[in-house]
C-alpha cells in the first residue's frame, strides 16, 4: 500500500501565486500598463499637493485656455481650475473604485462559496446572478439611483452589484474544477469537514483568475462611474469626477477642446493601462 501525502492546509498544490504576478508586471504589457496607471493613481493620491486651487472655487475667468497664469490646464465654464478638477476627479474615482470593486469581489466570492455548499443553493445563486446580469450596467445604475438618488454611495453600490456575478461565477467555476482534484479528495478522505476542505484547500487554489478579474473590474468600474456621472446620476456636483468633468465639457468641444482633454486622456490611460495589466496577469497565470 502506497502512503498518500496530503498537502499542508493553506498551502496550494501549485506554485506560489506571487511568481506569476511579478512576472506579469515585469512583462512588456505589464510595464506599459503600470506606466499608464501609476501616474494617474499618483495624481489622485497627491491631489492636494498638485492642485493650486480648490476644485469647487469659481471665478469670472471661464473657459480660460491652458497655460493661463495660475491655471496650467485652463478653467472650465464656471471659472474653476481644470487641473484641480482633474486631479480631485481622479481622487474621487479612485476612492469609489477602490471601495466598490473589492466589495463586489468579496460579495461575489461569498456567494460562490455559498453556492458550493449544496446544488439547490447553487441553482438559486446562479439564477440571482442571471437576474443581475440581465440588466445592462447603466439600466442597473438608473434603477439604483431612482431609489437612492444620485451620490457616491449609489455609484459604489452599482459597481459592486455589477461585479458580484463576475467574481461569483469565476470562483464557482474554479471551485467546481478544484474540488474534483486528488488533493481535495484526499482532504475529504482524511476527515476534513466540507467547510474546511472548501476554505483551506480548494479556495487558495481557485483565486488566481480572480486577480485578473480584479484588474478587469477596475476597468469596468472606471467606465461605470464615468457613465453615471456623465448622465448626471453619479457623484453630486460640485464635487468633480472624471465623468462629470467630461459631461460638463460637451457643449464646448468645438470652442474649448482642452476642457474635455484632461478627463478623456486620463480615462483612456486608466482603462488601457488596467486592461494591459489584466492581460499580462492572465497570460502569466495561464502559462
Amino acid at each position, binding site marked *: 500500500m502506497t502512503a498518500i501525502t496530503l498537502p499542508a492546509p493553506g498551502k496550494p498544490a501549485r506554485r506560489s501565486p506571487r511568481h506569476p504576478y511579478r512576472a506579469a508586471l515585469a512583462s512588456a504589457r505589464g510595464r506599459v500598463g503600470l506606466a499608464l496607471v501609476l501616474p494617474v493613481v499618483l495624481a489622485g493620491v497627491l491631489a492636494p499637493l498638485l492642485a493650486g486651487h480648490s476644485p*469647487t*472655487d*469659481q471665478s*469670472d475667468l*471661464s473657459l480660460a485656455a491652458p497655460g493661463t497664469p495660475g491655471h496650467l490646464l485652463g478653467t472650465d*465654464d*464656471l*471659472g474653476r481650475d481644470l487641473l484641480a478638477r482633474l486631479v480631485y476627479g481622479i481622487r474621487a474615482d479612485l476612492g469609489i473604485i477602490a471601495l466598490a470593486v473589492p466589495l463586489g469581489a468579496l460579495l461575489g466570492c461569498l456567494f460562490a462559496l455559498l453556492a458550493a455548499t449544496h446544488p439547490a443553493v447553487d441553482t438559486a445563486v446562479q439564477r440571482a446572478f442571471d437576474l443581475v446580469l440581465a440588466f445592462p450596467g447603466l439600466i442597473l445604475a438608473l434603477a439604483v439611483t431612482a431609489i437612492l*438618488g*444620485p451620490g457616491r454611495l449609489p455609484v459604489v453600490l452599482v459597481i459592486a452589484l455589477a461585479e458580484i456575478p463576475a467574481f461569483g461565477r469565476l470562483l464557482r467555476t474554479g471551485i467546481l474544477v478544484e474540488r474534483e482534484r486528488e488533493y481535495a479528495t484526499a482532504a475529504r478522505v482524511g476527515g476534513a469537514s466540507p467547510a474546511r476542505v472548501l476554505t483551506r484547500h480548494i479556495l487558495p487554489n481557485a483565486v488566481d483568475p480572480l486577480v485578473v478579474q480584479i484588474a478587469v473590474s477596475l476597468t469596468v468600474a472606471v467606465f461605470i462611474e464615468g457613465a453615471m456621472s456623465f448622465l*448626471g*446620476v453619479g457623484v*453630486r*456636483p*460640485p464635487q468633480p469626477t472624471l465623468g462629470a468633468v467630461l*459631461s*460638463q465639457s*460637451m*457643449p*464646448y*468641444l*468645438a*470652442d474649448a477642446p482642452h476642457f474635455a482633454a484632461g478627463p478623456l486622456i486620463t480615462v483612456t490611460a486608466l482603462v488601457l493601462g488596467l486592461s494591459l495589466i489584466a492581460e499580462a496577469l492572465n497570460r502569466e497565470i495561464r502559462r
Partner: protein
Amino acid sequence: MTESYPSPAAPPSRRTALRAAGGGTLLLGLGLAGCRSAVSASESAEKGGAAEPRRGGTVSVAINSDFTPSLLFAQSGQSLQHRLVYNTLTRYDDELTPRPELATSWHYAEDGRSITLELRSGVTFHDGRPFTADDVIFAVKNLQNPARAAQLRATAGVITGFEKQGDHRLVLKLAHRVNNLFDLFEFMIITDRNSVEEALKGTRLNGTGPFRLTKWSPGSGLSFTRNDAYWQPGRPYLDAVEFRVIPQADALVSSLRTGQSQLTFQVPGRNLAVVKSSPGLTVTEYDTGGGAQYLGVNTTVAPLDDRTVRQALALAVDRDRILKQTLGGYGLASAAPWPKSSPAFTEAGRTHYGHDPAKARELLRSAGHTRLDLPLLHLGLPGDTAVAESLQYDLKQVGVHVTLRPTDPATAQKDLISQKMPALWTMSHGFAQVQPSTLAVSAYPFNEAKNTSKYRSAKYTRVVREAWTSPATGAAANALHREISDILLDEAFIIDLVIRGNVQVAAKDLHGVTLNKFAYLNLDNAYLAA
C-alpha cells in the same frame, strides 16, 4: 371700448416700422450683437428683404422633448405644435396689442363685465366641420375644467356666461372686470369639441390650423401636412412639417449643423457658440422673454421665513455671472421677473438687487446667522446643474452652505404644483411675458392664492386682485405694476435671476418663422427660399 380689424394682416406697428427702417438689425443689450427680434426678422423678409416666398418643401423641427398630449391645455415645456394644428382667438403683437385670429373684432361693454367677439366665418376644422361660437364656448369651459391643469384657469373662470348671437358672434359675460382676457385668448387653442378626449390621448388632433397632424410616433416625433382648406388664402407655403425628438443637446446641434433639421428653439445657451459659428444657420433671440430662471424660497422653512434672510440671498447671487457662464449670455440679468417687453419692466426693478456679498453677510448677521445649511433642488439636466452650482458657490461666499438635490423634470413639476419644494429650489417660470397680472394669478411660483413658496399676504392679494381687475394700461395700471414689483422684490420669496428669451436657430434659407407669447410655433408665412 371697441377694437376692429378688417383683415388678418395686421398693420405694422410703430416699433416694427422703426425696425424695418433700420434694416431689421435691432441689437440687444448685454453684448448680444447679431440677435434681433425674430418677429422683426420675418417681417423684414416679407417686405422683400431676403427672398420671394416659395411654395412647397418640408421643414424639420428639432425638439428636445416629446409632445405630451395630456398637457395639451396646460402650459408645458413643449407647446410648439399647438399653433400648427390649432388657432387661437387672437394673437399679441410685440407691444401686447391683440390682433385677430379666429376672432376678427371685439368690443367690451362699458362696465367691462362682458365682451362681444365677432368670429371669423368660413373657417373649418380639419375634418370639414365649420367653426362656430359653440367651439369657443367649449374651449372656455374646457379650460375651466380643473382636470385640464391650465394655468390660466383663473382667468377662464371669470367667464361665467355665454350669449350666442348667431354662429359667429358671441358675448362672454364676466364675473368681474379683468385685464388679461387676451392672454387667455392667446393661450386658449380652439379644439374640436367632438374629439377632445382623442386629442388628450394624442390619437387625433382636429383643429383649424394650417397643418394637419398625420402621425405621432411617441418618443420619435410628429408629422404634419398642409391644410389645403386653411382660412388664410394661399397659406401655408410649406407642404409639410416634421418634428424630430432629439433629447441630447449635442445631438440636437449636430442635426442642425448637418442639415437634418432646419429649425429649433431648444439649443441651450451654452451650446449656442457652436451654432453661431455654423455658416448655414442663423441665431435669433426673441426679445419678449419666454421664461425666467429663478431661485425659489420656501417661506415656511426657518430661517427663510425671515424676509431679511431672503433679501440676503437675493444680494448674494451674481446674476451677470450666471447669465454669462451658464446661459451663454442669452438673456437679461434681472432681479424682477419682467422682460423688457412687459409693461411692468423698469430698469430700477431689474437692478434692484446687485451682487453685494458684503451687504448679504451683513443682513444675515443682523438676522442672527453666520452660517446656514440648506438644501437646493434643481433639475438634473446639465444646464440646470450649472445654474445650481453657480448659486451654491455664490451662497457659500456669504455663509449659506447649500446641498444640491438634483431631480427629474416631472418630479420637480409635481413638487412645484403641490407646494412640496424644499427650502430652496431653482427652476424657470413663464407668464411674465404677457399682462403682469397673469403672472400673479396664474404662475405656480407667484400665484397670490396658492404659490410654491407658501407666501401669503393680504397686501399682495389685494394689489394683485386690483391689478387684475383694473384697466391694463394707464397711470393707475403702471402704479399697480410697480406695487406688485415692489412686493415681489421686497418679500423675495421668488428671487429672479435671468430673464430668458426664446432663441431660434434656423437654417438660413428658412424665413417667416414666428412664435406667439406662449411659444406656439407659427409657420403660416414660413417658406424655404430657393
